[in-house]
């Protein structure tokens, strides 16, 4: 039943010259689930995101959206199909206001005297504030510069923007990587809110403690290959940790340190 899946990668490979970035990776995203993509640095997470986002065409395998084969030649095409990627740099301009950032590149317009097209700044401010409030984020003013917001708020702004502009699938690239505990928590809440609205989320992270509470299923990547996909019921946080590259190394390190202390 491939119809359950909004987005599928089937045995996808990606080569850069002699480098094998991805090898036979299969990833299936169900409608309305949060699918966590776990892997250490160099596991191929970035390549996978860029393949999904339409930046890299896969070297082999199939990419299906809602059961149909797709061949994206640009991120714009993926976006038009409702696949929105929020990269770590967030595509926000710190010196610009929240409202102007929210609508950058997709400005709401109105006509002066039915003739002169102008940007509807009031509408932009109102909608930006409302949509952020819907997501549980309260900005001091939609006219404040994004530069004055915290990292977590910026992350939430970028996600809220993607949702407002019709994202059906949200690909979040390490959204909690640079955040503190409380801010990470806010981002996780936002992911939950998005899921509750029927949006499917691919949550890329290397932090199992962030992934496990929110995720419905987990795919582990290691050195360009998938170590399998697991539903939450089938796997414990501990086994996930173990499977992460480095998990066993950390445990042996812990054991060694404890041994030394004893």
């Amino acid at each position, binding site marked *: 039943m491939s119809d359950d899946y909004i987005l599928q990668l089937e045995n996808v490979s990606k080569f850069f010259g002699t480098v094998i970035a991805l090898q036979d990776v299969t990833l299936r995203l169900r409608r309305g689930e949060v699918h966590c993509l776990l892997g250490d640095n160099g596991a191929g997470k970035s390549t996978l995101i860029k393949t999904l986002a339409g930046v890299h065409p896969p070297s082999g395998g199939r990419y299906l959206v809602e059961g149909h084969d797709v061949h994206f030649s640009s991120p714009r095409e993926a976006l038009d199909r409702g696949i929105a990627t929020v990269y770590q740099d967030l595509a926000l301009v710190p010196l610009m206001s929240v409202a102007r950032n929210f609508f950058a*590149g997709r400005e709401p317009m109105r006509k002066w005297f039915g003739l002169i*097209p102008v940007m509807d700044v009031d509408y932009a401010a109102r909608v930006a504030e409302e949509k952020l409030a819907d997501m549980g984020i309260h900005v001091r003013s939609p006219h404040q510069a994004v*530069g004055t917001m*915290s990292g977590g708020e910026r992350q939430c702004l970028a996600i809220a923007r993607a949702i*407002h502009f019709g994202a059906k699938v949200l690909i979040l690239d390490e959204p909690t990587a640079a955040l503190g505990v409380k801010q990470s928590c806010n981002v996780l809440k936002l992911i939950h809110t998005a899921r509750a609205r029927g949006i499917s989320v691919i949550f890329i992270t290397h932090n199992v403690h962030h992934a496990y509470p929110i995720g419905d299923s987990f795919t582990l990547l290691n050195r360009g290959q998938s170590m399998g996909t697991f539903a939450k019921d089938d796997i414990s946080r501990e086994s996930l940790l173990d499977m992460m590259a480095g998990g066993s190394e950390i445990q042996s390190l812990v054991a060694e340190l404890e041994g030394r202390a004893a």
Partner: protein
Amino acid sequence: MSSTTPHLPLTTSKDKPAMPSRAMQTDERVRRISPWRSFIGRPEFGSIAGTVLVFVLFGIFAGDSGMFNLDGVMNWAQVAAYLGIIAVGACLLMIAGEFDLSIGSMIGFAGMMMAVPSMFMGWPMWASVLFAFAGCMGLGWLNGYLVVRTRLPSFIVTLAFMFILRGLTLVLSTYFSNSTIVSGVGDKVGSDPLVSTLFQGSALHGLFAWLAQASIIAKLPNGNPIVAGIPKVLLWWLLMAAAAGFVLSRTRFGNWIFTVGGDAVAAQNVGVPVRRVKISLFVFTAFCACLFGVLQVADVGSAAADRGLQKEFEAIIAAVIGGALLTGGYGSVVGACFGALIFGVVQIGISYTSFDSDWYRVFLGAMLLLAVLFNHYVRLHATRSK
């Protein structure tokens, strides 16, 4: 465009608890910002404060010298207007994150492109002026194209054009007229109704005559008003400033300018045509430089190889005093206009005082330094996370 964007019905989710009502959203961390504080946070604050400062200073030192009589006002306002026209262009370009150092040379070259065909090739004046605008905008496009294609800093690309155009101006002038100046252009402009109406002399003569009649403004002994009318360069400045200010703050393209200058990669990622925005602003800046050149030739009556020397720096300084950041993404047209006004007041005003006019540059340099420090502080303030 936004009307065709697909929207998800975001408010239809039933499984979620109701969002807190808007009345409950007051955040205890929200601090009311007084109108004064939000005013000093605006990009044009520095230049408005600077303008007030120079008016106060010159009011004290030159208040009774005639500097603030109508003819005195027209005097410095005209200087400010010339600079203001190119400062508007330089300001938009700087907000988009680029420089144009060829503005000054472009002014001289525009004058030559207008003078040479009309004086030596028998072109009608309107055609020469049209040619000058087309030529300058073409060169502006080339500047922009080279910058976005090569990804070299605009500083170095336009520095090259600063020399190329200055050299070409000199070559053209000496080739055709055997001197660095082509004179007699003013009469030719005067005999072309279209060009003289648009670019030469002053306007609103009837209004000024009436004001003189009503004794609202001073009269000459022969009964004519002391100033015949508003110099057209002032009207052009107002027009350009209003148009650019409108585009920057109110239109989609204005939002693109800020986005491109603030972060070109982010702009690309949200679908802003970065290259097109930058190239069109180079063209606009060249248009402003050409307008400066044409107005000056029509006013002075000749084209000369040294016209517009160092004007690129003055334009950039005016934009910086007006709050534009050297790194782009921030600034205001109103601010740049006040920056230009400061130039006009100081440059002309200093000769009304007992100070040596050599102090003019010292004053401007100090003003620039102050403005840069102030802008730096503003940016730190604006980009600092809480």
